[in-house]
């Protein structure tokens, strides 16, 4: 199984969730993160002193999927999260060794 970590723009969460739901991916975990990359932070001013805020708000999506839908999910994610503007984010795919559903103890693909 694959553990897919996607860093996206905050307002793209809803389209991504909807797009994944359409292909039957109905589980995921999200959190607020801050990112820094080609898109740099913004200059802010506070009481006459300018300074750079290096990080920008992003959403991190973590979703575990079966190996054979991995590529499809990647595609969907990329499409749904894309604005074409700098700062759209990245998707990282990691390998999962094992999964357990806490409620039932099921493991593997059954656990998702």
């Amino acid at each position, binding site marked *: 199984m694959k553990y897919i970590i996607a860093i996206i723009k905050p307002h793209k969460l809803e389209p991504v969730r909807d797009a994944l739901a359409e292909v039957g991916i109905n589980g995921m975990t999200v959190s607020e993160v801050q990112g820094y990359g080609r898109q740099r932070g913004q200059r*802010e001013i506070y009481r006459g002193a300018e300074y750079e805020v290096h990080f920008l708000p992003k*959403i991190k999506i973590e979703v575990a999927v079966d190996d054979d839908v991995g590529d499809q999910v990647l595609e969907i994610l990329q499409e749904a999260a894309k604005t074409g503007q700098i700062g759209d984010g990245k998707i990282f795919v990691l390998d999962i060794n094992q999964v357990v559903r806490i409620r039932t103890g099921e493991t593997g693909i059954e656990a998702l």
Partner: protein
Amino acid sequence: MKLNGKKLLVGAVTVSAVSSPALAVSADSAYIFNTLLFLIGGFLVMWMAAGFAMLEAGLVRTKNVAEICVKNVSLYAIACIMWMLMGYNLMYSGVDGGYFGQFFSLWSPDDTATLVEGAKVDPTGYSAGSDFFFQMVFVATTASIVSGTVAERIKLFPFLAFTVVLAGLIYPIQGAWKWGGGWLDAAGFQDFAGSTLVHSTGGWAALVGALILGPRLGRFSKDGRIKPMPGSSMPLATLGTFILWLGWFGFNGASQLALGSLGDAVSVSNIFVNTNMAAAGGAVSAMLVTKAVYKKVDLSMILNGALAGLVSITAEPLTPTPIIATAIGGVGGALVVFAVPFFDKLKIDDVVGAISVHLVCGIWGTLAVPLTNDAASLSIQLLGIGAIGIFVTISSAIAWFALKTTVGIRLDEEDEERGSDLAELGMEAYPEFGKGSQKF
């Protein structure tokens, strides 16, 4: 306010209060009492500026909180300055049954007539400054109403420019019609403390602004769904409501304009009671109605309900008995619960519910006057509501359109997405708390 020949109405009984001379209030004391009433009423209404600021700061999303604070502080400041530069004299100087007073006439206090040696002091008089101060804070209220409705998407400076026009022209002109002793006053229109003159006026200007500005991005989806955008801080909204409730004692109470006689003391007291009962009625009725309709109690609606009660009683806080005042406020509270989703359905995006509270209940309150005050007639009340509604709608539409076509009034999409705080101020309201500006 500024009613000539105001009758002494206490409860529903008209009496003439004349104490035996030895016990009476001296003219000078009466003058001081009247002035003091204005000063106390004035600082209480000034405090309402903080109430609007907190209410609105609580009901917008995090990313727009600092901007709404900027707006509320600066609109108050600007309204005061405009009032001094031209508003006061436009509303009050030489209206004489007509349509407006003096244009572009700077106000400055002049109490020499009172203070010269040997002057005969009028026991219904008061110092010029206290009157100016009290009237000034009313203008600011009108301007505050608008800021809540158009929040989260309007640009700062165009909004402030509108405030200049509202405080310098629109408010004082329509105000002159009634409180300045203009044609509506002559016609017999009754609006004790401004359900129509202050609240509906603010409401109309807000409504026109909301229509011209359009809703926030994503607020109404193409498939007809309404997306709520919950406010960032319920306790701040609650605080704001309590502040407004407190300020309203000044708003309505000091609109009696005098405290220098027994009758006035009684009247001001009854106004305090009725104002409070109407707010209580509005809050309770909004609570019960939301529970009945939605199965859940909605805090923001209860807050709106209390304010609705206050707006509803403002046109006539003196003549009702307390139980009637409670009922008038209660109707206001119920109205607001239905008005808010109604405007949603019309895709009019009113961030804080100001149109429902101030316009809808301002109209209701004005229409309710004849219920308890025989001096009012329904037809004249309708005339006043209509005349002021048309004038404010047209004049604000002109102002909003002029701003829209010249400098533009709306943030561009990207700025709206990241929030007006970052876009216009380059800062955040809560830099260490939640980063996301939306529930996901």
